[in-house]
């Protein structure tokens, strides 16, 4: 069977199996550690931004916004109302909370220096002297490793005052979140970073104008930063050539669910979803695929006959779903789709921040409705009503959370309507137990 390395150069995860690959020592000796930073410090910030633009690097957090363009949106010389210069901040979004996604966690445990180096370069590129790394609250181990990496880099002179003898100062600060999913949204992250409730902000103003602590800020994903050193070391053209026309480089896919070898795989975006699943060992032996969620829980799901779609941003969008954060969840035929989606909806119901009316009430309503259908209390009108609730939620709120809720809910009704109808007709998942199903136990919060 072919491994990931047979498809593309492993630019991020080449050394993943070496026990000490997270140390500075190993990184400097074996992985061209901090050479890109040395090169970047000799370049003008604008040239770095141009290089990143040329590499076609697109944000790996989920939205896929071109990174170079995002950096170029940062104001060159921001001033406050009194005419004093304002600081600019680089923020790393390490609040990886999307169900089914665990690629940033791998980078933080195995290649923290790659991310730190990329972040220092990014700070230099936007003329910022301070970066915040917002790490999800549950990532205790990752936080420790990241802090150690920052300490090592500081001791070696890659961070702090006068980095590598130049007049560039940079400091990175780790901030631990409290484990809220919504804080992965960039403006909610900034609110949380400031110590406020983690609720998304109204846009405009965008973070590039008013970000962390009211200063211009740029928020990028862990994987995005980790890709930056390679771009500077090997050149933007090389990086771009690894990818496709509008998106350069490789991507990390976190494959989970009913596959033989779940894990993180570094693959090119030219592959189809079926090939990605093949690399992960294929669907578990003796079973067949029923549905696949291609990019984290909030993406609409695909049926087994739809997985020959290319895994780049645009092809997936054309197929009615998203490339998202790269979390591929494979469900085989033993899964009841309604039950699976109910589990996701319970998560969303719990994680909605509760600002916008539609999201607060709608996510709860959907979860209750799915549960009622599972318990045998559904009727055929409910299915039309799920679609109506979803259309009232999607695109109506401050952030994309409401769209994320409707992704799995709406696609499941559209693509697996017969399963809903079976449950309605048969009186729930376990009619012999009076309709109670395996997830009927109420959580304390529901």
């Amino acid at each position, binding site marked *: 069977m072919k491994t990931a390395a047979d498809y593309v150069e492993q630019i991020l995860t080449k050394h993943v199996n070496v026990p000490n690959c997270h140390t500075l020592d190993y990184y400097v000796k074996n992985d061209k550690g901090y050479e890109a930073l040395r090169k970047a410090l000799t370049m003008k910030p604008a040239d770095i931004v141009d290089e990143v633009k040329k590499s076609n690097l697109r944000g790996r957090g989920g939205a896929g916004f071109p990174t170079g363009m995002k950096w170029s949106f940062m104001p060159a010389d921001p001033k406050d109302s009194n005419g004093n210069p304002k600081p600019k901040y680089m923020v790393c979004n390490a609040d990886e909370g999307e169900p089914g996604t665990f690629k940033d966690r791998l980078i933080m445990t195995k290649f923290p220096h790659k991310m730190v180096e990329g972040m220092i370069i990014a700070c230099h590129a936007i003329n910022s002297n301070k970066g915040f790394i917002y790490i999800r609250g549950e990532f205790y181990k990752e936080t420790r490793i990241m802090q150690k990496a920052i300490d090592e880099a500081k001791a070696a002179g890659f961070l702090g005052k006068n980095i590598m003898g130049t007049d560039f100062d940079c400091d990175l600060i780790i901030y631990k979140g409290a484990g809220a999913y919504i804080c992965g949204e960039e403006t909610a992250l900034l609110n949380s970073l400031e110590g406020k409730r983690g609720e998304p902000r*109204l846009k405009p103003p965008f973070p590039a104008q008013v970000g962390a602590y009211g200063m211009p800020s740029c928020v990028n994903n862990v994987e995005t930063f980790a890709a930056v050193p390679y771009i500077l070391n090997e050149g933007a053209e090389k990086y771009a050539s690894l990818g496709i026309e509008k998106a350069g480089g490789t991507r990390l896919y976190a494959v989970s669910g009913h596959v033989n070898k779940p894990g993180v795989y570094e693959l090119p975006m030219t592959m189809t979803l079926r090939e990605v699943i093949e690399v992960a060992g294929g669907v578990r032996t003796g079973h067949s695929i029923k549905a696949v969620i291609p990019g984290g829980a909030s993406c609409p799901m695909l049926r087994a006959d739809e997985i020959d779609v290319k895994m780049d941003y645009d092809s997936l969008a054309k197929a009615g779903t998203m490339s998202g954060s790269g979390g591929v969840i494979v469900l085989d035929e033993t899964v009841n789709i309604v039950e699976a989606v109910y589990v996701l909806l319970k998560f969303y119901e719990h994680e909605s921040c509760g600002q916008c009316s539609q999201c607060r009430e709608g996510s709860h309503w959907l979860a209750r409705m799915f549960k009622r259908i599972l318990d045998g209390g559904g009727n055929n009108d409910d299915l039309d009503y799920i679609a109506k609730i979803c259309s009232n939620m999607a695109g109506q709120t401050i952030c994309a959370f409401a769209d994320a809720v409707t992704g799995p809910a709406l696609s499941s009704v559209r693509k697996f309507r017969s399963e809903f109808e079976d449950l309605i007709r048969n009186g729930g998942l376990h009619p012999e137990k009076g309709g109670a199903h395996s997830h009927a136990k109420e959580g304390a919060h529901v």
Partner: protein
Amino acid sequence: MSNTDFEIKKPKVDLNYSSHLKPVHSDPNPEAKPLPKVTIDGKTYEFKPGDTIMQVAERYKIHEEIPRYCYHPGMPIAGTCRMCTVEVEKAPKLMTSCSTPAGDGMVVHTRSEKVMKSRTGVMEFLLTNHPLDCPVCDKAGECELQDYNFEYGPAKSNFKEEKRVYDNATTKKLSPLVTLNMNRCVHCERCVRFTDDITKTNDLVMVNRGWHKELEATTPEGLKNDYQGCLTDFCPVGALTWNDFRFQKRSWFLAKKPSICDKCSKGCNIEVHSDADVVYRYVPIHNEMVNGHWMCDTGRNSYQEYMNPLRVISHMMRQEDKMHSVSIEAVLASVNAQLKGTSSVQIVIGTDSTREEAALLKDKVPALIGKNVSVSYFNGTGVNTPADDKKLDNLLKMKDQTANSRGVEEQGLTPLTNGELTADVAVLFRNGRTGIPKMKADQKLVLWGVWSQSEIQSLPSKNILGVIAGLATIEKEGSYKNADGIVQKFHPAIIHRGGALSAHHVVGLWKSLT
């Protein structure tokens, strides 16, 4: 500020607050840049750069109003209720009109099909968990959820699940003044933003997340600001209710007339809510120059002193060692005779009198008594002259607890020396707000205006020559000059049903006696 006279008027929009915004017109200067224009519902309007779509619509009173829950003109914009969304041409999504700045050439539809569908959706979501206990809810009749549901809501709901019920939801007291019913809350968070940004006391906070979000006080003592009544005014539903008004009256029975709060020198513009000339509450009305959208709790509860059964509302004089209710003619005849028989008389005008009353007492009454009468004013609430007045907080409250210190001083009067009565007989005129001056043991008194029985009992009754009952602020007309020098006229908000008479009426009768 210059002496700007204006009359208190009830704003057009029938909510407890409204926008003060007036249409902008092009600068007469021809060289000035033309104002940008926005098209709303097919008509083109000029706007001030920086205005949001909501503000432009409010200035020109487009339709009734754009529905809103979280938006309040006096508070920072949140943009979370999603009720005020409008369709902007070329924008991919519906935009919240409260937060989207109007742009030159923008084309906006406030009632397109897409917009109405979205609003119906929001209403349906909000109503899923609303208890719909309107028959026992104090907000019914002035509830924004009712109003907007009538206009935009779905005819019926398909919500078949159980509604959300919070623990102790209907009995939670946020303070002795305010009760919270969390079940009714629509999570607009106006109250949280009010305590964060207006009173800056940070009393309230939303705990938990999403569907479980619950309003709580930050400290066990509950609310600690002095503007708690405002929370109950702008709460769009019956979640926050004013204990004093709770279960007292259905709101649609209330007559609503504008007046002025006379509890301090700020002169907040209020609406007096009464039924059968019994006042049930005061609510503030918007006046950007005076009180903005707010009023303090002390002022809000000050109606109780005028509605108090102990207030003297009939004229009294001493007969056979007791105070008796008698006709105004009898009191005036007796008082007139006794004043003529004394060597020195002084008139003390309370600083809570209107400008017109102060002028009348200074100019006309000494001539009626016909002696060399000294006239002075008295405050007695911790300040002697308007110069002593100062702000008690960053919002509205003033140290001077009377409404018209500046207006009375303006009549050329001087304060009562040492706050002490000196003449044989003193005529004390007040509106129920000033203190009572110091006096010697056998000081003879004529009490005029608003007095309570307890105040009268604290004075030696054998020295009281007569009591002339007068009208309170909400019952009379006149004008006050507030601490900022703004003169505000007002008219009766309720009709006085007792025997009290206006000062002009009394002076007229007095004149006919002499």
